[in-house]
């Protein structure tokens, strides 16, 4: 079957909204912002180390890490530690919605750093996390 040019364009247009979603820009903007705030010597490798590091919650005594809810494998679905609700994969390659909204990223950095580390993450830590997630 031969598809002529116009048909191809019509079909392509039907799928255009999906095309724009996979941009890495919000994460790059945040990396620039964190650098302005003093982030230095950041790397995906450092992010990976931090990802698996365990922090003791002084109240409950339980050990918490990013991987507690998000998994060690960023391509896999995670699970909320308390409710068991599935959490979509963190890697953009497995979940194109990741790293597409800077407000969303900052909100969850704030919530999850406090839960896991017991404090806000530093600009350097956040940069390394972003680089690690981007590398996946």
């Amino acid at each position, binding site marked *: 079957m031969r*598809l*002529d040019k*116009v*048909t191809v364009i*019509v*079909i392509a247009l*039907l799928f255009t909204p999906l095309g724009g979603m996979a941009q890495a820009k919000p994460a790059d903007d945040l990396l620039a912002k964190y650098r302005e705030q003093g982030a230095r010597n950041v790397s995906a490798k450092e992010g990976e180390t931090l990802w698996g590091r365990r922090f003791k919650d002084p109240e409950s005594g339980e050990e918490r890490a990013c991987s507690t809810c998000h998994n060690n494998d960023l391509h896999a679905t995670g699970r*909320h530690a*308390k*409710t*068991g*609700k599935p959490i979509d994969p963190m890697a953009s390659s497995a979940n194109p919605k990741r790293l597409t909204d800077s407000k969303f990223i900052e909100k969850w950095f*704030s*919530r999850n750093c*406090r*839960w896991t580390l017991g404090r806000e993450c530093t600009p350097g830590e956040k940069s390394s996390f972003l680089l690690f997630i981007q590398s996946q």
Partner: protein
Amino acid sequence: MKTTVWIGILSGGMLLLTAQFALSRDKEDSMTWNRLARGEAAPGVASVTNKLYEQECGACHFAYQPGLLPAQSWKKTLNNLSDHFGETVELEKGDLAALTEYLTKDSADLSGNKFAISGKIIRSLGDKEIPVRITEVPYIVRQHHELSARHIGKNPDVKSLSNCNACHTHAERGSFREGEVVIPKFDRWED
């Protein structure tokens, strides 16, 4: 010529899909309206219609329909987010106000005459009772009294009675019919 035919087929297909969707929505709506006209409540609870609620609350747990608790209960929970069942929840100020409005407006007291479960929840509560947990509501407790720990607490795929959608396969739509219950690791639930 060929192009016109292709465009025709594509747009025709899309129109058909849209029409089918509209028709199925109409059917549901008209069923609800018929019931209302007869003075009967629709089964279940009103489904969640608020995007902010789905995002902010539904990110961590099942987005419990507002019609599962009375307005006073929602207010109590929203006023105590620094200790939200052991977790700290932080919301932007405007978001908190918007969520309070949504949850109280669609709460069980206000939708009880339209939705059967909301009505039963309200009628099972004493005058001064303000439960913070849906699982403490007498009607909900009664409905689950036959279940034991091996079905819920000790069942790793359920873990808690608060995970409605672990067994109620249509919970997200606000439907909790017995025939829709499938307990993980057990067969379809029958009385």
